[in-house]
């Protein structure tokens, strides 16, 4: 039985820890984002909290003939899925739970995000929100495969889908060295699933905020938090999958993991804010025509390296 944080610290404390970690990650993402957008330095990290409190004070708005149940369900599901995807990310050297298919779990949470975001767009019975929902479906479909292939590439090299094995397999060489394409595609696809930055078309200003156009109060907060948590989870996962997780000199492992996660977040936000939102038909085309073949090639290269004994030596 692998050493999970649920087994080590008890289920409830471990779940609380993971949730707290997810929220901190989301706060980090929102803070860095705000710092880049508004140029307010460290004060930027106060603003996400202020915005959250403001939304909690705000009335929940509804529309004419909404599908209330599915709408609210979708809003609530987004942050929950973000936190759940963290269940297989090592925090303090342990994942919340561990199965022989951790990578599949992470991927499954993303797949469920399709449904959740689609419902957020569908629920209010309004065309801007619905347009956002459509855009997300197309984007999710297009980026699911590249993301899956990049995850599989990691699994191939490590010979396991278990996170702790994957981190252990990088003790000599970080996977990013032999699979840079998979790394970039993974982080980019994460941004696409969080519909953030250049992939923000499902919530773009050109459709009045898209899936979020009819959201106010706690519903908007849930969606915003969910997106930020998911982006943070992607960064933490990328650090574990490609950057060796907690490995590093002097400092303890968890600190290294956090530092790498922060570095990924800062890089991601800095790059993402340098460009406009990309039109969804263009990004979808890239996913199918460029990213799918590229990740397949990457997997091939890694498979050849594996057979030649590169990873075991």
């Amino acid at each position, binding site marked *: 039985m692998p050493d999970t944080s649920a087994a080590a610290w008890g289920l409830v404390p471990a779940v609380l820890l993971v949730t707290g970690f997810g929220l901190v990650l989301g706060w980090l993402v929102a803070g860095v984002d705000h710092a880049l957008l508004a140029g*307010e330095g460290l004060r930027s990290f106060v603003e996400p909290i202020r915005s959250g409190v403001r939304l909690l004070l705000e009335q929940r708005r509804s529309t*004419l003939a909404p599908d209330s149940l599915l709408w609210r369900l979708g809003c609530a599901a987004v942050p929950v899925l973000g936190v759940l995807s963290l269940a297989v990310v090592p925090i303090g050297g342990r994942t919340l739970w561990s199965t022989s298919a951790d990578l599949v779990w992470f991927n499954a949470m993303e797949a469920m995000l399709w449904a959740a975001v689609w419902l957020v767009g569908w629920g209010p*019975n309004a065309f801007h929100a619905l347009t956002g929902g459509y855009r997300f479906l197309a984007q999710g479909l297009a980026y699911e495969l590249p993301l899956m292939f990049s995850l599989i590439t990691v699994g191939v090299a490590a010979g396991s889908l278990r996170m702790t094995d994957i981190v252990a397999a990088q003790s000599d060489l970080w996977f990013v060295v032999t699979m840079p394409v998979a790394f970039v595609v993974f982080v980019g696809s994460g941004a696409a699933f969080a519909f953030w930055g250049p992939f923000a078309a499902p919530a773009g*200003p050109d459709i009045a905020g898209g899936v979020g156009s009819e959201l106010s109060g706690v519903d908007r907060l849930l969606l915003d938090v969910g997106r930020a948590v998911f982006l943070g989870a992607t960064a933490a996962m990328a650090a574990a999958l490609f950057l060796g997780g907690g490995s590093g000199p002097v400092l303890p492992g968890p600190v290294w993991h956090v530092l790498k996660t922060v570095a990924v977040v800062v890089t991601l936000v800095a790059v993402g804010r340098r460009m406009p939102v990309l039109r969804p038909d263009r990004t979808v085309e890239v996913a199918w025509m460029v990213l799918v073949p590229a990740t397949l090639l990457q997997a091939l290269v890694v498979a050849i390296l594996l057979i030649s004994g590169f990873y075991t030596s």
Partner: protein
Amino acid sequence: VDLTGRLRKWALERPRVLVTGATGTDSLRWAAESELDRRGWVLAQSPCDADVLLILGSTIPQLSAAVDLVWGQIPQPRCRVEVIDESDLAGQLDMAVRALVLSADRPESVAPQTAHQGMGESADVSMGHGGHSAGGHEQLETTSGATDGGADRSGHQAAGHLNHMGAEPEHEDMDPSPHGGTGGAVHEAPGHASHEHMGRAAEGGSDHATHEPMGHAHHGRGTPEGSDGAELAAVDGSGHAEGSGHEAMSHAAHGGEHTGHHMHHGGKVAGLDMAGTGPDRDGLQLDLLGVSLGPVLPGWPTGLVLQARLQGDVVTEADLSWVDASERMVHPPAAADSRRMALDHLAIFLWVAGWPRAARDARRARVGLGSTDPAERALAAGRAAKVARRVRHSRSLAWTVRGTGQLAGGDVLDRIRRWCALAAGEAAETLPFTPLEELASAVTGAELGTVRLIVASVDLGRTAPRHDVELAHA
């Protein structure tokens, strides 16, 4: 002061703002936007996203109906600010925050889930039933919940309001809120009935989205576009057309149709017609949705209305018009202003294109160029050149917009690069004005987001105030 109160005050110190202004209020809008940037207040993407509705200049009647509709969609706590001149802008915004906090402090105004008052079941509601609580119920909750608590408190009767919409100054009669200083008035949430539900509740309407505001338009002025819009809506139905601020736009349509003459056809859901179908570009039968954008929509020329039929998010038919006049007025900017105008165009385009950093830089340069201090101006000129260079050389922008919106002067990218050249102060000739008909044909066949980019990329040549034309129409 209790902790909760202070927390509330702190949280509301940076509200999100939806700015709208009549044509010809550009300089006021520039001043307002720079003040918002200075305070770090963010521009809202939709009414739902907003806390403060900032109305610039004196809105003409046709527009004020749409503004009221947008106001009705803003969730509480909320605040409405009308600013006439820029001298007291900062004071007005400070006042807005105070009014927001006040509005949040009043529990009845933020807890709308009270007794079910049965709104919306009959057409009667839309007339003369101003006092119901609209905000509460989940089933038919259509508004942002103006719990105005009844006519007794607000002194506001919907019917009366509908009838005098065209002529009266703004809402002075019904808001018990503290009024602002010289520049305008701060209207506070409670006691202000949202108008949106009236139209929606009017079950007999041929199409709720286009129906509701018409009440205003009809009583107010009536518009030349009326019959077209009515026809369009009657054919399509627009079940989904309610959204953030879009229904506002349809208020130009329909002038003539609304009293007593209602079209019944097809199935209805919650009083809305089901969408019809038509062949799409691949020859399939797809839903046709009648949707209108404008006249009050962030990042959209105020007063412009797009009546469109959509299949999915592709516009299959488009009709563009100004809400306040049938012909446009061409008023070329003074040479000194052409750089600032170009930066303004860029700022709006970049905002719509989802590039908030570059948009902010463009706005900042625009402010500086208007300064009287030469050092400040030189600095701003540098900033303008920088943002222009960044946008012009952006490969991602080029990749994403190239080939869209072909007009006489090239595509969207060509026009944006021209704006960049102007903004950088290079001797480039200004863009030709785009007639609405040309624009309408350029947006036909485009996807909704692309439509927004195309509209934001052109110069429609309306910078003059419209009052003279107004009077002619009256």
